[in-house]
């Protein structure tokens, strides 16, 4: 059992582990909406759109995370604005704003010569560089996002499943949709430090997609997804410690393995049951 406790003798590993667990859980829960509402592209776009915010914050000597947060919220609201006019589709709006923000980010960064090190941390995460204040920042924002999701579970369920009903029930659909975008933006910013913007889309999509294979209820899907996310973070961090590979990629690879196991072996929906001739017996035994 020493191999389990060994890495934890370092304070930076303890902080890294805590941050990874929080982010893994948060991403996986928010990711359920990303998967169910087909927002994977949006998640990826938002992740890249925070680059100009980070660059501007760096130029102004401000807080990088705050800059990222402002950029993510601004871009998500802009995407909402462009697509709600009815003249272009949402994925087109995403494509345009995503590319524009990324271009602006690269333009700004290319003008900063000393930025190289920090940039690689933003792109791929730097879990082992989590400071105590980062940890508090992560904890507070994660709690705020999770609390919002918990309180607005039903309105979010309705606008995701049946926006038409939401409108006939007079729920404030646009407000709720924008709020969901903001929550997504915040989640991505928090994840920047653990998995980096390059891989955050995977953490949003993969555990939730795996959970979807095992259940047919949103609440169960969220809990299961959170477990998968936490497990990926934990496993990934240990693998990265012992195999000496980047923590972000190790976490995403573990999540991918969990997804693949579900894809092939999930009860009823796994691919393996379609291949085996005995499936019909299993089905018949159900009441």
């Amino acid at each position, binding site marked *: 059992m020493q191999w389990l406790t060994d890495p934890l003798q370092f304070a930076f590993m303890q902080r890294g582990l805590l941050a990874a667990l929080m982010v893994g859980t948060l991403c996986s829960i928010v990711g359920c909406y990303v998967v169910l509402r087909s927002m994977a592209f949006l998640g990826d776009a938002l992740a890249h759109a925070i680059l100009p915010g980070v660059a501007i914050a760096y130029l102004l000597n401000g807080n990088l995370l705050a800059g990222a947060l402002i950029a993510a919220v601004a871009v998500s609201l802009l995407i909402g604005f462009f697509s709600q006019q009815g003249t272009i589709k949402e994925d087109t709006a995403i494509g345009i704003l995503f590319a524009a923000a990324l271009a602006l980010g690269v333009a700004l960064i290319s003008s900063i010569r000393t930025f190289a090190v920090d940039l690689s941390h933003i792109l791929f995460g730097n879990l082992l560089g989590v400071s105590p204040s980062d940890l508090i920042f992560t904890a507070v924002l994660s709690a705020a996002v999770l609390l919002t999701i918990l*309180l607005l579970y039903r309105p979010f369920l309705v606008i995701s499943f049946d926006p038409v*009903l939401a409108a006939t029930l007079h*729920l404030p659909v646009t407000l709720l949709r924008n709020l969901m975008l903001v929550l997504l933006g915040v989640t991505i910013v928090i994840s920047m430090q653990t998995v980096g913007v390059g891989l955050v889309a995977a953490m949003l999509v993969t555990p939730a997609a795996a959970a979807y294979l095992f259940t*047919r209820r949103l609440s169960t899907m969220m809990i299961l997804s959170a477990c998968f996310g936490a497990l990926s973070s934990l496993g990934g961090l240990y693998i990265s410690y012992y195999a000496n590979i980047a923590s972000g990629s190790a976490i995403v690879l573990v999540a991918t393995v969990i997804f693949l196991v579900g894809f092939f072996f999930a009860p009823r929906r796994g691919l393996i049951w379609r291949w085996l001739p005995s499936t019909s017996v299993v089905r018949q035994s159900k009441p």
Partner: protein
Amino acid sequence: MTKNTSLPATPAHLALVNASAGYPGHPAIHDISIEIPCGALVAVVGPNGAGKSTLFKLLVGLLPLRSGQALIHGLPAGSHQDCVAYVPQREEVDWRFPVNVLDVVLMGRYGRLGWLKAPTPEDRQVALEALRQMDMAQLAGRPIGDLSGGQQQRVFLARALAQQPHILLLDEPFTGVDITTQEVTLRLLADLHQKGVTVMVSTHDLKMASQYFETVIMLNKRLIAYGPPEKVFTPDLVSQAFQGHLLMLDNSVVVDDCCGHDHIHEEE
């Protein structure tokens, strides 16, 4: 929130005044004026693209009017809490969403619940009763995606019932569903009609419209006819509404429009 008595105290009165909707040059509906008295049971017929769905979406406030007015109880459509329930066409719903049957029906209660409150036992009671009325109570715990098309339709009808509406709008409830569902739906319509709920149903099935409905609205972007079936289903008016989608065989009229794609018209 209105009180949760089981059925409307104030009857519904629906009116469109010179209503138009859609894009300029491509009106979905154009200059429609119509008054529907409270408690009416109305079928809306017309070919594909005639604006039947548009009409419904106007009445629940989902689409903006380009001009004219849509009034419910004399107030603009969309401004009424709890008043109108709408069951969209089956294709407009993501059936793979992870919710079970009871979850879906309970959504009909959210309008009364407010944002943060959980459904009360009474809400559950109403939801289960609505499912029972649709012969679906035994499937309450099933994922919505496991059900057949007709069963899914019945779940949505149950949800509309759980909303306890004054006005119920059903968009193509008879298309692509099994006989049982059609029968249950017709039974529901009769029941609601008896209780004084205003019901509007769009359908391709002219025979059904003439058999089970006391009033018919015939549309083709404009209002072609509005009145009792025997006054509306005259060869003249029907051919005016359906134009190319129509087949006249002796005395009966066949509308070749049910599957949504225009095909075979060799006889014409």
